[in-house]
Structure formats: C-alpha cells, structure tokens
C-alpha cells in the first residue's frame, strides 16, 4: 500500500515539476508548484513527520504560494512576454547540464558515502511520545539559540520587505 502511494505521489510530483518549468503562464506555474508541495507533504506523512507535513501545507502551500500568486496578479504580466528570448541557444546546454548534475547526484547516492550513525529516536519511541512534542522539546532545549535567532531573521525580513515596497527607494 505504502509502496503504491509512494510511486503515485512521486510521479505526480515529478510531472508537476516538469510542468512548472515549461509552463508559459506564471499563474499556472505557481499552481503546479502548489501541487508539488502537496505531494511532498504526503511524502512527509509517509516518513512519519506529521508536524513537518502540516507546516509544509500551512506555510509553503498556504502562505508563501499565496504571496507568489498575489505578486503575479499584482504585476499584471503579459503571457507572451517571454517570446523575445535573448539567449535561445541556452536551453539545450542547460538541460544537458541538468542531466549531468543528476548523474553526479546519482553517483554520490550509489557510493557508500551516505552512511550515518543510528540515532535514539526510533519510530516506536516517536509514536509513543508524539512527533510534535519531541520537536518542541528539542526546539526549546538544544536548539534554543537558533530558534531565537530565527525570530530576529523574520523581524529583519519584515522590515526589509516594508522598506523595499515603499514608493521611493
């Protein structure tokens, strides 16, 4: 069951990723990206990361992509704007370089470099205590400093966005 679900969801994710690249209309690109993110959220649930899946749906598919769609509609882009391509001969080498990158990544995956030490959080333990509770515990004990720095980062980003959106720069 899980195997079929993985293959179906992975196929949808890859297809929507391809559509995202080759779609002319930016609104449809954004909608395909939302579909990809939903597929990745399903994969997170398969990997027993329920909290991350919920955050993926709420923050990525909900907040960030709505921001993207909002900006696309605000800017009122013409669909045919990409017709005048200054570097049309860039496409084929770009795809070849992408395939080469994928080959390099597969070689790394085939090698034995990706071996790690087994941790203490087994699936039974996580299911017993609860995924969200464990994450919260770690976030407010071992990772307290990064967590606080994150708040400063968000604050700076909010100020930066407001400054950049002002009429006169």
């Amino acid at each position, binding site marked *: 069951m899980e195997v079929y679900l993985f293959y179906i969801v992975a196929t949808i994710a*890859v297809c929507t990723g391809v559509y995202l690249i080759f779609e002319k209309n930016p609104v449809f690109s954004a909608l395909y990206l939302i579909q990809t993110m939903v597929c990745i959220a399903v994969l*997170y649930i398969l990997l*027993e990361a329920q909290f991350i899946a919920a*955050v993926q749906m709420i923050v990525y598919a909900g907040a960030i992509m709505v921001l993207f769609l909002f900006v696309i509609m605000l*800017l009122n882009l013409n669909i045919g704007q990409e017709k005048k391509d200054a570097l049309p001969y860039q496409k084929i080498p770009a795809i070849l370089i992408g395939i080469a990158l994928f080959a390099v990544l597969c070689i790394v*995956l085939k090698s034995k470099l990706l071996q790690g030490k087994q941790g*203490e*959080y087994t699936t039974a333990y996580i299911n017993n205590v609860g995924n969200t509770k464990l*994450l919260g515990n770690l976030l407010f004990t071992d990772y307290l400093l990064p967590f606080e720095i994150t708040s400063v980062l968000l604050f700076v980003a909010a100020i930066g966005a407001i400054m950049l959106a002002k009429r006169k720069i």
Partner: protein
Amino acid sequence: MITITHYLVLSAILFTLGVIGVLIRRNAIVIFMCVELMLNAVNLSFVAFAHYLNSMQGQLFVFFTMTVAAAEAAVGLAIIVALFRNKETVNIDDMNIMKW
C-alpha cells in the same frame, strides 16, 4: 519496500528540475519558484535521512529551512515588485544595469 534511496532519487530529480528551471526561464518570478522547488527537494532528503537514521535533527533543520524560505520569499518578492516599478518588466534579460 521503500528504502531511503527512493526518497533521495526523487529529491535529486526535483532538485535537478529546479536547476534546469533556473537556467532556462527568463521570468524572475518563475525563477524564484524554481528556487523554492530546490529548497523543497533538499527538505525532502532531510526528512528521509531523519526517518531512516532514527533521528530528529533532520526535521528540526527542515523547520529552520522553512523559516528562512519564508523570509527569502518576502524579501525576494518585494525586490521583484520594486524592480517592476522601475523597469516595467520582470524579464531578467532586461535587468543588466550592473553588467558594465
């Protein structure tokens, strides 16, 4: 049986799609969305490693990556809106004032 390699190969495919999109597209917003796709691909491999190595650190890093991605989206889209106000376009071929 789904192994970690399945998830890592899927993650590699999505990352490669993002790279190709950044290279071949000319619309700044679509390029930005491809960057988000690459971030998602890396997050997927983080969670896959966390699950198969019985660890929690991968999920925490995904949490921080999402925060950084949210900040990046806000600032980046503000920059794109500011550029559109000045240039009336989001085509990156027209944004070459720093070239010479």
